[in-house]
């Protein structure tokens, strides 16, 4: 196992009596694209703010690059690019000037501004006032700002929030490229698994402030099983009929569901139904969806 870039220990944030984040042990390895998932209000942003030292944890601590964020904040943040919540910008300045403010503080050469503008595809709009940017452009400007200084770790909080499908795809490809070409470690949060499913290597799921899953994307996918749905006449009777032939169907509403099976078995199944005088109106093969596991995981927790 490679060295962890981010490691939190029993990280807890309490607001009044309510735990916003509780006993979180996050672990992001070097080179990971870590998808930090959870419904809105699960504690994603609070966690990210604690990672960056913007919010003090009630308990526990955060280590980034093996150093404590509270103690070595300034040294750590030199190598971290971050976009927290909605992007912030100075509307009365141009995109270029907004980035210049950051290079000025970090003491970076001006050409880095051109570079990051090119990476996020804003070169042509750099001279315009940010006030006139679309939400997607502002978001990309925020990412450009995070990229300044060639960080080793990139933390993006809901970078696809509020974007149209084309914008989401753009960001997704951008993140993929950064991870592959520059070898950056990236933590990206979202409330929609589908948005980042194609990008991430590791998934952490937070629900009501607690980490309920943290493994590779493959491990998550293995949990997801596809199923076969049949729409038939008299589903109750059909179920009993099928059971008498040794099938093991599930009834979901008026649909009969099966686990994924071979083509031969499917043919046999339909034959059995037809011979039993049931009409088959439709058949659906449901692909394994991470969205489903996500819902399963979070539902189990809430029960």
């Amino acid at each position, binding site marked *: 196992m490679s060295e962890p870039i981010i490691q939190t220990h029993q990280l807890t944030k309490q607001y009044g009596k309510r735990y916003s984040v509780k006993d979180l042990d996050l672990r992001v390895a070097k080179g990971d694209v870590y998808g930090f998932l959870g419904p809105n209000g699960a504690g994603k942003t609070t966690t990210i*703010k604690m990672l*960056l*030292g*913007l*919010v*003090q944890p009630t308990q526990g601590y955060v280590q980034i690059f093996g150093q404590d964020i509270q103690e070595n*904040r*300034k*040294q*750590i*943040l*030199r190598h*971290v690019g*971050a976009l*927290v*919540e*909605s*992007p*912030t*910008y*100075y*509307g*009365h*300045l141009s995109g270029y*000037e907004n980035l*210049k*403010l*950051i290079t*000025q*503080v*970090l*003491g970076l050469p001006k050409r880095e501004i051109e570079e990051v503008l090119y990476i996020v595809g804003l070169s042509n709009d750099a001279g315009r006032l940010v006030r006139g940017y679309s939400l997607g452009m502002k978001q990309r400007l925020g990412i450009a*700002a*995070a990229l300044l200084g060639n960080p080793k770790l990139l933390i993006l909080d809901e970078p696809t929030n509020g974007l149209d499908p084309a914008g989401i795809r753009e960001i997704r490809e951008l993140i993929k490229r950064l991870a592959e070409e520059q070898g950056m470690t990236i933590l990206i949060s979202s409330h929609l698994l589908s948005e980042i499913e194609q990008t991430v290597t590791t998934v952490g799921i937070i629900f009501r402030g607690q980490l309920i899953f943290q493994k590779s994307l493959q491990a998550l996918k293995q949990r997801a099983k596809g199923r076969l749905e049949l729409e038939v006449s008299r589903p109750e009777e059909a179920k009993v009929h099928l059971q008498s032939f040794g099938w093991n169907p599930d009834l979901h509403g008026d649909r009969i569901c099966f686990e994924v099976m071979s083509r031969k078995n499917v043919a046999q199944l339909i034959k059995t139904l037809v011979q039993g005088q049931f009409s088959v109106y439709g058949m659906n093969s449901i692909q394994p969806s991470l969205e489903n596991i996500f819902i399963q995981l979070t539902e189990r927790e809430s029960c």
Partner: protein
Amino acid sequence: MHLPIPFRYFYTELLKMRWSMIGFIILLGVAISLWIGFGIPVKVNQGVNEWLAFFGFTVHKYTMFFYPLIIGIFAAWVCRYEHIGNGWKQIFCLPISPSHVYFAKLGTVALLTLMTQFGLLSGFLFIGWLSGLQDAVPWFTLFSKVVYGWFASLPLMTLMLGCSLLWKNFATPFTLNFIFTVPSTAIFSGSKMGFWYPWSQPFLVMMPKHEWAIEGTQMDLFIGVGGMFCLFVGATYLFFTKRDW
């Protein structure tokens, strides 16, 4: 380019400013003060330097009203861009500490205020020359009053900056400023308490000898201004560095 980070950050504060607006505010404040100072027909007593007399008329309204107001505007201004859309968190994702940010903001307010003071002085000299004031120009007195006046407004700057950091609303520090200006004229300017009252301090320093303004030693002033400055910096600093973003 390779100055330490706090100085580089301070420079970005200046880059963020909308200088046209700042220039407009300074010009307006100075113009109104001068208009009042020179516009009211008065007779200058014999033996009094005309420049000093008119400086008194001008500075009286200026320090009472416009100067605190302008300081309040500047203080709110330097926090405004961060309050819109919580730019604070983006700043604190950079490798700088809250104290850097605080002192950069305070430095900006102080710089703008100093510009206002010199704006007033140049305006005053110009209008004075236009209206053909007699007597020799008391350069040293005028100059030192302007600089001391700036120094004496440091507590007010820190206080207004603290309020602006605390409240997102542009109007709140503004209203407070307005409310606390009134007792300045009524009570504090005439008593030793004035040396401790941030809205009276610039007035007491900048006014030439006058029946409405109590006289004190430089020590009184220094202790009052220094004390209040430390108090406000300390309080704001504690609140500002400890909070979550």
